[in-house]
């Protein structure tokens, strides 16, 4: 196992208000890693900083680029790159609230996902794979994305991210606002995407789903990491059970 992403002493603030107060953690290649925590703990801020939408005050985000056969080529710092350059390193972000382009068709949304790519054959292969993963989307290719249901929009947001053939996918609350059956569908897709080789950093409010899907978990509290460990251990921890799983 080798590290794909390493965050060191990350500080992010909105004006005078500190949102992240020295976060350090790393994500190993091939894993599903989850970040759980209450509203306002800084989970979304952390993902937005990794993908370049926010600039850190302090700290370092290192990423180990690799070629398709997994040979590590170089380590680079993401903390000073613009979002559109970070995508080119193989990091995709499925943002909170999905933010599919409602004024574009489903087809165009997926095409935008592959915006940085020029390998027509590879794009075609990923296109087929995304539509196989989410058959619902293939029935709706011509429809404008704004007319999709919440679950379909989430599938589109994930599919769009996959179209860049990412090595690391940041997912922000993919279960938000979905019915229990759709939550199952989305998490099944997440496992399948991971089995297909992508590493996943998953932010979730649904702590139970997250901890049973991921291998490693981090619990965030007000801008810091309070607890971390393998998910099966976190699931047994009294703190986690009381606070995040609603058990007494």
């Amino acid at each position, binding site marked *: 196992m080798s590290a794909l992403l390493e965050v060191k002493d990350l500080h992010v603030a909105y004006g005078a208000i500190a949102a992240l107060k020295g976060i350090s953690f790393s994500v190993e290649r091939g894993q599903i890693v989850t970040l759980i925590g209450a509203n306002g703990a800084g989970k979304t801020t952390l993902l937005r900083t990794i993908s370049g939408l926010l600039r850190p005050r302090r700290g370092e985000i290192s990423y180990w680029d690799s070629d398709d056969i997994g040979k590590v080529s170089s380590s680079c710092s993401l903390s000073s790159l613009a979002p*559109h350059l970070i995508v080119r390193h193989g990091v995709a972000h499925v943002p909170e609230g999905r*933010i599919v382009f409602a004024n574009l068709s489903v087809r165009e949304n997926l095409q935008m996902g592959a915006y940085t790519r020029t390998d027509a054959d590879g794009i075609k292969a990923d296109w087929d794979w995304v539509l196989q993963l989410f058959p619902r989307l293939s029935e709706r290719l011509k429809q404008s994305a704004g007319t999709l249901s919440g679950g379909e929009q989430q599938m589109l947001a994930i599919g769009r991210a996959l179209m860049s053939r990412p090595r690391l996918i940041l997912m922000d609350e993919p279960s938000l606002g979905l019915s229990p059956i759709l939550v199952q569908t989305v998490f099944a897709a997440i496992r399948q995407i991971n089995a297909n080789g992508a590493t996943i950093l998953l932010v979730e409010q649904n702590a139970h789903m997250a901890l049973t899907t991921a291998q490693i978990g981090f619990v965030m509290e007000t801008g810091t990491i309070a607890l971390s460990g393998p998910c099966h251990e976190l699931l047994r921890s009294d703190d986690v059970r009381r606070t995040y799983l609603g058990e007494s």
Partner: protein
Amino acid sequence: MEQFVQQLINGLSLGTIYALIALGYTMVYGILRLINFAHGDVYMVGAFFGYYVARFISTQLGYVPSMLNFFLVLAASMAGCAILGFVIERGAYRPLRRAPRLNALITAIGISLLLENLGQLVFGADPKDFPNLIPRTTLSIGVLTVSNIQLIVVATAIVLTLGLEFIVHRTKMGTAMRAVSFSGDAAGLMGININRVISFTFVLGSALAAAAGILVGLYNPKIDPLMGIMPGLKAFVAAVLGGIGNIPGAILGGLIMGTAETFTVGYLSSTYRDAITFVILVAVLLFRPTGLLGTPARSKF
């Protein structure tokens, strides 16, 4: 009845010019949520580029008025203004990308004043006669008269609009423009270089404004450095009337503004030529603030 149809023809050909300018306002607004008040002055510069290029090719190259002349002048002026639009965005608006939106708006007004005064300094404040690019002929259909200039104006505007439609809906860059107009953040996460899309939008809008400047030079051959103020305002109102940020809306708004103006002049008095613009603006803001084709909140194009 003849007068009505005649005014309609005149109004629609004037309206296509407003529509071309309005497209630039609406595209920039769609992407940046900025009213680029310097846009009317870009149109003025376009007319002057055309003036100098036309003089050059007739005196230096000895071309006589013809369609070729017109195309050369149109292409040169569109290219010149495309560069101007690029430079304005790069130099004036990009440094303010993270500043409050009001700062960019004030800067736009500043750029507008700069272009107007620089125009007076460089081109001279006196009106100039726009050279005759195409031999004028008039076609009579019954009691109606249509000049070949009107036909060329309308045909050029239609071709340019179709070209824009193609770019926005059929190319990767156009799709990226629509994506950025919906959400800059999400577009960035797709790997879209937002700054490049914004530059491209200014280039497109400014080239269309230059085309409007040339067409107006054909139509009404007096140009001066302050000529952009009133058409700029009217095109802005046209964009608001159609629903700002909405491309078909800008075209519809431009056509309505043009016909409203010629009907006012024809049936009421030419004194109210400009007043009608602001009557329409006030009416839109009172009764349909989102414009005719605009939707509340955030759908663009």
